[in-house]
């Protein structure tokens, strides 16, 4: 038993109350005292507060996350490292992850969102991958509130501000608005990088005596306790939690990236981890933990921005743009030289030890000395009580007869209302603020089902999409989770890419409420089933609990990003129609899936009903068909039917592709394939949100081939019309719509900007 560490001069004595103020429960405190055999020092309790926080320990979610399928022949790295990785062929790995920065963004939208992007970028280049694409998923409350507009502007500017300056294109994302996010916005950021498949770096300390080196920006008092903030709900008077917001410096991150990748091209680095939540504490403890070793850190050697910081503050600071690495002994000078070239600091702050302890030294004395395992593997794991929320059945009930559909000729007006609603309007106002073309890889940027970036030097491209639907999740989290997986992968498949793997961000309310845990388990179950059925394992992810303000939680919002590959030098299939004369084809069957639909919300002001049922076998068949049809060059365009249903998908398909003019179409929906051949309400043909459907256009001489291929895959297919002209005409049961495309497109394109400008 080593000597007990001495408190750092001036630090307060630790009591159960003090521990509780940092989120450690009475039970947990007892465990800590028991494990250490003594009262922890102030620095030590700080380590536990950070590492046992929900954010770092996943204590409420860990047991449930095990349900995800995480393996597959192409998986190089599943969950557990800084990011997941899959083999995409051509000798390359795609390394990717999504992460939330919800709480900081609500407090300071610009910096909160910016540092969210900075954090996820570091997670990816920590693995030795060069970031090549960013996406984001955003949820806001109703945008008519000035405060909400301020948040929207700040978040979008912050995401752009960081990614643009750092120099990684933001190629896609999604934005949603629901009342449940008014007090808890969601900001989820995704980053994808590429690395040689055989040169992934991991955060596993090795080699007793190896130096532990701190690189990057200096440490200040920023964000002390960000990890615990992300693990607590907001309350009235949450102001006191405010000074924890960090400021990002994308310029420093760019230098850090170049220096790290330059260093990682050699063999001086043994392990590396970014300093994210709980900074130096989590990076050192996790690296030591994964390697089954110990780490000793002398905080006096940590480069500081401010005078008088205590070891507690240094260990818990969440200053941005910093990394911790373990280098081979004797290579310290090489490391320092690389970082000096990029005007960055590198300081040896400690070494790897064989005793399995995290030891912190300050002023020459040991101020913390705890078993690494106590911080990591032995962190509490809770199987919290779960219970179905009361009153859910009432929300599922839906009286469609109270929602009469528009008259046949009024559908044009209904379509315009849908297309200009906050949920469906073009996101151009958002993505105009993001550099989507830097790095000269963006083949399909924002504005399509999936973004596509080429991989230079190979015959491959990567497609990616991020999706989620809080309304579905709120009504039925299991189906909502499955639908998120299905939509993200379907979007990828629409581009002709074979979906490979997923990353996910689970945004939920307070896990100490049984309803939240029920929703959480249900959503994971649904996602897992879908991921397994679609052959897309989950390789990384993030959980954000405590999205709750004044006792009101958000609807469960699982956000899923899917990544797929296009091989053989093929071009992606675009979303919009391209050539007059092409046949318009609908793949997949339509059902009476109006529950939770955008149509009910926008046209009738109703948010109710059961979300669409998902037939996983049908979905899998559709996605296989899309990939096969693209490979055979049968598809001129493909666009999935999502919010707003077939009608909105058709309209969007007429809006064209980047650099191409819009082109109209005439379709008749009388012969639409129906689920199980069962008759549907007339409006369902137009606006039901039955999943597993795609609007495609096909050269007329290839339609027969597509039909044959669809038959082989067991996917219903119907030729419903033809591309051409400058109008969209839709006829069929209960509909006689005829609108000019150009003005409709303009209304859709500018609706978001008008919404933001409205006072």
């Amino acid at each position, binding site marked *: 038993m080593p000597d007990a560490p001495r408190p750092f001069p001036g630090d307060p004595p630790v009591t159960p109350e003090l521990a509780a103020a940092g989120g450690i429960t009475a039970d947990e405190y007892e465990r800590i005292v028991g494990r250490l055999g003594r009262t922890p020092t102030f620095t030590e309790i700080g380590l536990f507060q950070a590492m046992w926080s929900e954010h770092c320990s996943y204590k409420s979610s860990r047991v449930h996350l095990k349900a995800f399928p995480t393996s597959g022949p192409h998986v190089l790295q599943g969950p557990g490292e800084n990011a997941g990785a899959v083999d995409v062929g051509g000798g390359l790995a795609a390394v990717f992850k999504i992460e939330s920065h919800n709480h900081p963004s609500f*407090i*300071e939208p610009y*910096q909160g969102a910016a540092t969210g992007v900075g954090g996820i970028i570091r997670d990816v280049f920590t693995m030795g991958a060069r970031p090549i694409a960013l996406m984001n998923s955003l949820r806001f409350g109703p945008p008519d509130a000035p405060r909400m507009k301020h948040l929207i502007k700040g978040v979008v500017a912050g995401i752009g501000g960081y990614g643009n300056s750092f120099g990684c294109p933001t190629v896609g994302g999604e934005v949603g608005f629901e009342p449940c996010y008014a007090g808890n916005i969601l900001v989820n950021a995704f980053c994808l990088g590429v690395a040689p498949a055989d040169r992934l770096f991991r955060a596993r300390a090795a080699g007793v005596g190896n130096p532990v080196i701190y690189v990057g*920006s200096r440490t*200040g*008092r*920023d964000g002390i306790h960000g990890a615990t903030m992300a693990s607590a709900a907001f309350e009235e008077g949450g102001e006191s939690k*405010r*000074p924890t*917001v*960090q*400021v990002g*410096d994308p*310029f*420093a991150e760019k230098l850090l990236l170049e220096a790290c990748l330059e260093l990682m091209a050699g063999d001086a680095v043994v392990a590396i981890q970014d300093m994210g939540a709980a900074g130096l504490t989590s990076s050192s403890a996790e690296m030591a933990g994964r390697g089954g070793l110990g780490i000793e850190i002398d905080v006096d050697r940590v480069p500081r*921005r*401010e005078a008088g910081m205590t070891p507690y503050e240094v260990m818990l600071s969440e*200053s*941005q743009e910093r990394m911790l690495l373990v280098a081979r002994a004797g290579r310290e000078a090489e490391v320092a030289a690389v970082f000096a070239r990029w*005007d960055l600091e590198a300081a040896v702050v400690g070494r790897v030890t064989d005793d399995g302890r995290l030891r912190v030294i300050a002023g020459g004395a040991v101020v913390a000395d705890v078993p690494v395992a106590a911080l990591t593997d032995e962190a509490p794991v809770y199987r919290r009580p779960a219970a179905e929320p009361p009153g859910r059945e009432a929300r599922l009930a839906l009286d469609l007869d109270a929602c009469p559909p528009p008259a046949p000729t009024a559908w044009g007006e209904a379509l315009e209302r849908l297309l200009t609603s906050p949920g469906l309007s073009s996101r151009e106002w958002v993505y105009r603020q993001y550099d989507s073309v830097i790095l000269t890889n963006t083949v399909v940027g924002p504005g399509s089902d999936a973004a596509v970036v080429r991989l230079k030097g190979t015959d491959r491209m990567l497609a990616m999409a991020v999706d989620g639907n809080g309304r579905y999740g709120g009504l039925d989290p299991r189906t909502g989770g499955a639908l998120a997986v299905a939509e993200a992968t379907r979007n990828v498949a629409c581009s002709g890419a074979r979906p490979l793997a997923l990353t996910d961000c689970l945004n939920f309310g307070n896990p100490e409420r049984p309803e939240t845990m029920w929703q959480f388990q249900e959503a994971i179950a649904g996602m897992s089933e879908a991921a397994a059925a679609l052959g897309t394992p989950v390789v990384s992810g993030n959980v954000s609990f405590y999205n709750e303000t004044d006792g009101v939680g958000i609807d469960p919002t699982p956000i899923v990003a899917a990544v797929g590959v296009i091989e053989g030098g093929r071009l992606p299939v675009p979303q919009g129609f391209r050539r007059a004369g092409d046949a318009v084809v609908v793949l997949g069957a339509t059902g009476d899936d109006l529950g939770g639909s955008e149509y009910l919300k926008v046209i009738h002001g109703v948010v109710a009903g059961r979300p669409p049922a998902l037939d996983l076998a049908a979905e899998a068949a559709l996605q296989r068909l899309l990939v096969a049809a693209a490979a055979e060059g049968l598809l001129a365009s493909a666009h999935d039917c999502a919010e707003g249903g077939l009608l909105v998908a058709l309209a969007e398909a007429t809006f064209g592709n980047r650099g191409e003019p819009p082109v109209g179409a005439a379709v008749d929906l009388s012969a639409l394939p129906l689920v199980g051949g069962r008759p549907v309400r007339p409006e369902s043909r137009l606006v039901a949100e039955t999943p597993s459907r795609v609007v495609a256009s096909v050269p007329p001489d290839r339609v027969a081939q597509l039909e044959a291929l669809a038959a082989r895959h067991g996917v219903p297919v119907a030729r419903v019309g033809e591309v051409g002209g400058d109008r969209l005409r839709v006829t069929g049961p209960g509909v006689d719509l005829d609108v000019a495309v150009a003005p409709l497109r303009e209304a859709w394109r500018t609706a978001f900007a008008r919404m933001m400008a409205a006072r």
Partner: protein
Amino acid sequence: MVARIHITLKRGVLDPQGKAIQQGLADLGFEGVEDVRVGKYIELKIDGVSKDTAERRVRAMCEQLLANPVIEDFRFEIRNV
């Protein structure tokens, strides 16, 4: 009246801009420059009210719009011109 408002980053908040300027000045050969901090300076005219009212209004403007209390401090003065 004219209000002259200074908005500065709170002590302890990272100021990447200040850091870059300090480095730039050093590269230009300006020695011994330290602690460069960058803030905003806003001037505005406000008329038809008493100085007291102007003071109250400008404070409210700073609190509500001009400064971000999470990371910034403000100070201002009001002058007759």
